[in-house]
């Protein structure tokens, strides 16, 4: 009886192991197939024509995506890095800190369409303006804020206490310590956070639908910043790659809509994956360096 009991136990164990193995493999194969499909399908259509800065090409949308993410990184760095410094260096334990932390957490879990509506209300409706890139960048920067804040806080917290003490010992004030010792030492980690945030920014769509607008009209020989078709003017409507996919798949006005959407997806996938790989590699290097000390 004992023997059969053990045999049953072992059989169940190997059945369950096989099930877990199957589940995991199935999921991984599905994910690989997903990436393979997007890349394969997209690269087929990635011709010179598709990459051109014309009506038919994706060049303008690509430029808009990069420019918009760049602007929103600047805005969220201005807000998020000091907030992280506050949490790591200036905050005392108390209600205020709890409140700020709760806010960071709430922001990071808000659906992007809700943040997009907020951006639409504040930056478009209340300023009586047309859809523009600045509004989109500000909205996306709200979505990036929590990530940058927590990355900055973590980066400062992992610095050894001796950095602070030796700086104080040399007679530096707290602000001098933060500015000249801690922030430079934490810079690689903060940079990693910025790259991660950029990776997320590229994929943002729902927050931009009602802020950045779904059209783009750039003339590449127009460098007058106040003109609505100047590439660098942030106050023009600017459709990004993600919005372009959305517009193509729901409105499908253009003949080669399917090809364009496939190419857009592949470009986005390359952008997002390469940024997140860079961020990963950087934090791997930092950990190795820190661990080696």
């Amino acid at each position, binding site marked *: 009886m004992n023997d059969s009991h053990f045999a049953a*136990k072992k059989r169940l*164990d190997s059945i*369950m192991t096989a*099930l*877990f*193995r199957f589940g*995991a493999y199935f*999921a*991984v194969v599905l*994910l690989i197939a*997903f990436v393979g499909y*997007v890349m394969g399908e997209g690269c087929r259509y990635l011709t010179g024509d598709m990459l051109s800065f014309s009506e038919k090409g994706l060049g303008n949308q690509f430029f808009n995506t990069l420019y918009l993410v760049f602007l929103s990184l600047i805005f969220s760095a201005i807000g998020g890095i*000091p*907030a992280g*410094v*506050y*949490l790591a260096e*200036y*905050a005392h334990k108390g209600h*205020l800190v709890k*409140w*700020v932390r709760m*806010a960071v957490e*709430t*922001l990071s*879990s*808000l*659906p*992007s*369409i*809700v943040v997009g509506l*907020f951006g639409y*209300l*504040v930056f478009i409706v209340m300023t009586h303006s047309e859809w523009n890139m600045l509004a989109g960048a500000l909205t996306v920067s709200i979505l990036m*804020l929590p990530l940058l*804040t927590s990355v900055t806080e973590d980066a400062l917290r992992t610095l050894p206490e001796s950095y602070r003490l030796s700086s104080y010992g040399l007679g530096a*004030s*707290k*602000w*001098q310590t*933060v*500015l000249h010792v801690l922030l430079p030492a934490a810079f690689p980690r903060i940079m990693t956070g910025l790259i991660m945030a950029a*990776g*997320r920014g590229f*994929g*943002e*769509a729902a927050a931009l639908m*009602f802020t950045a607008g779904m059209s783009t009209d750039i003339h590449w020989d127009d460098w007058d910043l106040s003109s609505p078709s100047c590439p660098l003017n942030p106050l023009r409507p600017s459709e990004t790659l*993600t919005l372009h*996919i*959305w517009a193509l*798949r*729901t409105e499908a006005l253009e003949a080669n809509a399917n090809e364009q959407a*496939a190419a857009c*997806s592949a470009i*986005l*996938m390359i952008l*997002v*994956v390469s940024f997140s*790989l860079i961020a990963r590699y950087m934090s791997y290097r930092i950990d190795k360096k820190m661990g080696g000390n």
Partner: protein
Amino acid sequence: MNQLQKAIAKAHRNDRTAKILITACGVCMALVPILIGLFLFYRGTDTFTLFHHSLTEFLFSGEWNPGDTAEGGGKVGAAMFITGSLAVCLLSLILTLPFSMAAAIFMTEIATPKARRLLQPAIELFTGIPSVVYGFVGLTVLIPFLKSIFPMPFSFSLLAAGIVLAIMIFPTITTMSADALAAVPKSWREASYGLGATRWETIAHVVIPAAKGGIATGIILGLARAMGEALAVAMVIGQMKVFPKSLFLPASTLTTAISADMGGAMEGGEYNAGLWTMALLLFLLSFAFIFLIHYINDLSTLKGEKK
């Protein structure tokens, strides 16, 4: 005053200014979600104050026919969008949970550490992939595929939306659960093996119960993501304004209704107000999810500390 004293005075001044500015930044950060909440509240309550609909009508009535004018007088019942959202979320959770759990358990308990170091980052990569890309693949691959196996009157369906969302929340749930499983002390497993338990018994009776707080957090985060996802769902669900009656029929969710109609609805009209109320509901739901996570964390840390 000599030069040194001047420099010291300047440093003190800068120190004070920096402290004020940085604290102000921290406080501003805390104000952002409150501002978002206030603005949504201000716009979202118009349905009830300006157009005199009741909360029960909004939550439980299926009659969605608001007037696109400032006079109002239509019906603002969002029940079909709410049930649509719930149905899609639950469906995606049911579809993804077995695979997430299998993958998480496989990574932490069965695979070699080397395989885990390769698998986990690979799965995490997928959390960053833009939702429109998921929607695009759903539209071009999944929908024709589903149509070829099931008899469906339209190509778009609740099932397609559920599958797309399931793939989207798989990485979130899997990585959170794997982290929770990996945090269970090795000695607990060894103690279980020492008592003669097999690997499956150890997993089922020791590791999973010990990690259930973290797993629950992962599931809630996944649900929150599914609830707030707009475009990927909108691309495959068909956006038909009906109750979700069948897996194979189109439906609508809160997010798809907002993304489809907000651009066209008249500013200040009843239709517009109804959509803002839905946005407010989404905001409150994501707040509720956070409280739930905190509640679960409090429960599981208390238990952990007793050991």
